[in-house]
């Protein structure tokens, strides 16, 4: 293994470390809402600084390697993919912070209704994130495609939640503040799934050298 290979390996580990943190943040943010756990919500908000620090470190590392090693072909695709992936991961971290902030607010008010679909959405979004990162590590195009396919399910859940919450708001204006905040949470989760989809799309670029963003899904 060359010195450059070792540096690429180290970079991959940094991306995975960041990914693991983001995954925890998604999970904990929703848990802090469902279990009305203020402390956990604060942990998520705190953790975001570490995620941001890693984001900057990974970017710097990629820029350094591009400048000094002049990577080509697969190496070049790996580095540009790593840079783009961290941008998405960082935004997912921000979305988790937003969920934790809404949790802190909602925890001050009475429960509107038991949370069922929100935890469900969260589990799918976490699974998509984990699999997108696994696909990145294993250069697994099939798994990346699978992640992309799952995005529709999250979108559908979000619209279901919106409709349900609107019906609450129509019936009782006292629910508006809480229902709005829960809608935001559904929206954040949907965005998180979008970012996971972006990562999966980048993995397909990494493996196949083809940019498939903004295209109809290839038949396969």
């Amino acid at each position, binding site marked *: 293994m*060359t010195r*450059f*290979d070792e540096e690429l390996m180290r970079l991959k580990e940094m991306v995975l470390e960041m990914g693991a943190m983001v995954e925890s943040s998604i999970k904990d943010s929703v848990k802090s809402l469902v279990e009305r756990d203020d402390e956990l919500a604060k942990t998520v908000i705190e953790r975001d600084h570490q995620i941001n620090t890693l984001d900057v470190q990974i970017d710097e590392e990629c820029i350094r390697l591009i400048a000094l090693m002049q990577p*080509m*072909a*697969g190496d*070049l*695709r790996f580095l540009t993919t790593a840079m783009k992936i961290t941008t998405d991961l960082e935004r997912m971290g921000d979305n988790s912070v937003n969920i934790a902030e809404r949790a802190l607010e909602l925890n001050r008010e009475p429960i509107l209704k038991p949370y069922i679909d929100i935890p469900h959405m969260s589990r799918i979004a976490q699974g998509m994130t984990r699999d997108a990162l696994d696909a990145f590590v294993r250069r697994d195009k099939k798994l990346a495609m699978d992640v992309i396919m799952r995005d529709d399910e999250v979108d559908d859940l979000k619209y279901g939640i919106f409709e349900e919450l609107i019906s609450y708001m129509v019936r009782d204006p006292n629910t508006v503040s809480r229902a709005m905040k829960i809608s935001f949470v559904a929206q954040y989760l949907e965005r998180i799934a979008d970012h996971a989809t972006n990562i999966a799309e980048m993995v397909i670029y990494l493996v*196949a*050298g083809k940019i498939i963003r903004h295209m109809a899904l290839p038949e396969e």
Partner: protein
Amino acid sequence: MVEKSRLKSESKNLNFYYGNVHALKNVNMPIELNKVTALIGPSGCGKTTLLRCFNRMHDLYPHNRYEGEILLYPENINILSSAVDPIEIRMRISMVFQKPNPFPKSLYENVAYGLRVRGVNKKQVLDEKVEKSLRGAALWDEVKDRLNNSAFDLSGGQQQRLCIARALATDPEILLFDEPTSALDPIATSKIEELVIELKKKLTILIVTHNMQQAARISDWTGFMMLGELIEFDKTEKIFTAPSEKLTEDYITGRFG
């Protein structure tokens, strides 16, 4: 890959032998008109051998043997045919070498040499050609006041541009470059690279380089060679971002063997 109407030249089932050594194996490579085609590959892969076939440089040594053809368009003549005069071909397809090799003559006479060999002796014609060629090689402004000085007074980078001017003087259709910047510093290298990109407006360029970043910067097409075979030929952008062949990938990412 390259549209037929855009071809300036192409090798077809080209084989080349140095005596018993089979140095080029069935090379089929298109050369697009007004484009830069780069050849890359490890030392000994045959890229310079291939380049030298294009103006019959191998004729200079006995026991060298070509098989197959290199067609020159639009006439569709086979460069390798014994009916074709290699001297005539070298007027149309000129070469610039790795190390600048000016003649021990004045700047003016270096550039005028090819024309004088052709029997051109009229001062006015020569003056015009010398100026045009030196301008074409982006050297005119630096040397116009000292055309009678020795070519060896120039820096390495200037000498290389002088050799390009010398090659341009016979109005070639194809310029062959054999690692033209490997003996030059980065500034001189950058000037030659800019020049290559400028020159392709008027002629067609084939360049051998060990510097992959150079191939990536200046060429439109890239061929990767190994052990006498053309392993992959594609748009430069494709070769350097997502090559199709694993051998190419291994070579350009430095993970060879």
